[in-house]
């Protein structure tokens, strides 16, 4: 589903990603781990289509299509979703209005009939319940005055409602207490399906305890320095990133 080949990316002429290769198949959940500043968030933003990142070399294929040639909205319509570490605040626009516009944009793109207000309400109420948000959020401005945990649950809500094929979760667990981490992980587990893929980007191994990753990759200084199974996460938890740093340098 997602194929990244030799990806080199710079921000303001500073190289951040220095040759990334990654293949994520439908049905899989991959975790990308790494210390701060390793390039994890850059990778997520490049997949979502953030233009401040300059792709110097390499390519990203999504279902065989060149993702880098698509506008951010095209990527979303084609089924790429990103959960942001710092979601933007949209003052004055309530969550219901925003979500209805987004859900209907995607339905329209798929040739499905747009939902009216009544259908949408029952649809979104079911999704809200899955991430333990009550209906009062629908009337609140998107992310305006939301706590860190509320913002992250709101991201997962959007993932569940927009029904993407590929979800990239950027540090969705950071700053959350253990109950919120479980809610987020539970949302991801409900989302997983044969025809969907998930990439979880995280600094900590903690959230992975509640998930079942197929592969774990370690990103450091813009390179994937190791890939492995679930055990790699435990090893990192015990020994820290410096262990791998030394192992690579050796």
């Amino acid at each position: 589903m997602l194929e990244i080949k030799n990806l080199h990316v710079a921000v303001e002429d500073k190289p951040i990603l220095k040759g990334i290769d990654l293949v994520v198949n439908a049905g899989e959940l991959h975790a990308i781990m790494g210390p701060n500043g390793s390039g994890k968030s850059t990778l997520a933003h490049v997949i979502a289509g953030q233009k401040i990142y300059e792709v110097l070399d390499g390519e990203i294929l999504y279902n065989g299509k060149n993702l880098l040639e698509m506008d951010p909205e095209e990527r979303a319509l084609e089924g790429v979703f990103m959960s942001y570490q710092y979601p933007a605040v949209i003052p004055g626009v309530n969550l219901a209005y925003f979500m209805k516009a987004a859900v209907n944009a995607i339905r329209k793109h798929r040739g499905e009939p747009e939902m009216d207000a009544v259908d949408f309400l029952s649809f979104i109420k079911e999704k809200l319940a899955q991430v333990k948000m009550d209906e009062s959020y629908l009337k609140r401005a998107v992310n305006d005055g939301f706590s860190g945990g509320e913002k992250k649950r709101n991201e997962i809500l959007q993932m569940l409602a927009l029904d993407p094929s590929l979800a990239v979760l950027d540090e969705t667990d950071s700053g959350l207490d253990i109950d919120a981490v479980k809610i987020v992980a539970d949302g991801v587990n409900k989302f997983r399906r044969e025809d969907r893929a998930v990439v979880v980007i995280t600094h900590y191994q903690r959230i992975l305890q509640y998930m079942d990753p197929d592969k774990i990759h370690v990103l450091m200084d813009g390179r994937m320095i190791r890939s492995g199974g679930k055990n790699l996460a435990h090893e990192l938890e015990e020994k820290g990133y410096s262990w791998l740093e030394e192992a690579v340098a050796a």
Partner: protein
Amino acid sequence: MKHLEKQFSILSPVDHEPHSLQELRQGAFNRFKEIGFPRQSWEVYRFTNTTVVEKNAFRLSTGADLPELGDVGKDSLSLPTLLFVNGHYQPNLSTVPAGLTLNTLLDSYNEDAKLVTNGYDAGANPFAILNTAMMNSGLHIHFSEEFDSASAVRFLYVTTKLSEPIMNHPRLVVDVAENTRPIFIEEYRGNGSVSYWNNALTIMRAGNNSHLHHLRIQNEAPSASHLSATFYQVPADGNIHASYISLGSALHRHDVNVVLSGKGADVTLNGLCLSKDAQHMDHNIIMDHSSEHVTSRMLFKYILADKSTGVFNGRAVVRQDAQKIDADQTNNNLLLSDNALMNSNPQLEIYADDVRCTHGSTTGQISEDALFYLRSRGLDVLSAKALLINGFANEVVDEINNEEAKDYARELLESWLNGVTGG
């Protein structure tokens, strides 16, 4: 000035007006000549150029300017409406709801000369003074206790089908009885390419414990100049909640003067300005807290496209004995173009010591982060921009407390947005 003098001389021998009223007019006109048209060297006109009304030879509207009415003023609003066309009241096309009494200003003047100003002092505002000299479609209205609580009435001033540039100096004096809660809508609308000048003055006196909701929509023709002043006198426990939606005319200037004169008085002024092309919109507001224990809020939002310009001058004054004041003043502006320009000047003038006053002003462009966020959820650029602009404007529109009028304001916003975003 010569041109105005001629216009005044045509107007002044108004046979049926009492001598004292003619003197009032003459005195005001003399005063106007002393002061003259505003100059940009004046602090309150620093960013606003009014030479368009000085140089153009507008003549006073006469009965001959009344066009075939047809469907003039017809629209989707079913609210009781009083219609004025090119400065002339159209009683046959108007609905006066129960509990609203309506008199010509002349009749009210004959009954009580003070009613024509109703406590308002135009100070050194040249256009308000000129309105006193030239006022031509004056009305005095009274919301009595029989007026249906929380129901609305609209005064619709339409300028249309002109063959020459005209001017009008409408004056509306509004009294609100104690304990009443009217919704009063004042709307200016125009079309056509012939330029015209509306110099409107609205004087409102709220009764004790009355709640007046005032919605003011300025949707004049693009060729128009709309200069206006609004005065609110708010006594004990009086409540004014005003929403101004301004999107018409080439030149818009609105002087607002609020006096909170009794304990428990509470005033909210909200404004939304939508400007494009080379439009210029200016609000000059004085919120005068002259009693203790009063509260006020000002929230003005400007959305400026193309090379349009805006001015916000807000001044909260707290008098020496006016303790326990709570006053907020906010001006937020959204620039949709690199060529748009906003001048914002919120000011506090505080002579009491036990008060809470805030003021703040922001001017910025559409947030790139917010835009990207919406696009990455599948919205195209135009829809995403429209959603963000709507969100910015909603804070003002949402507070209009009549559903029909709120929908109407939303429609105006939507169609304006379609015009500027090309959507």
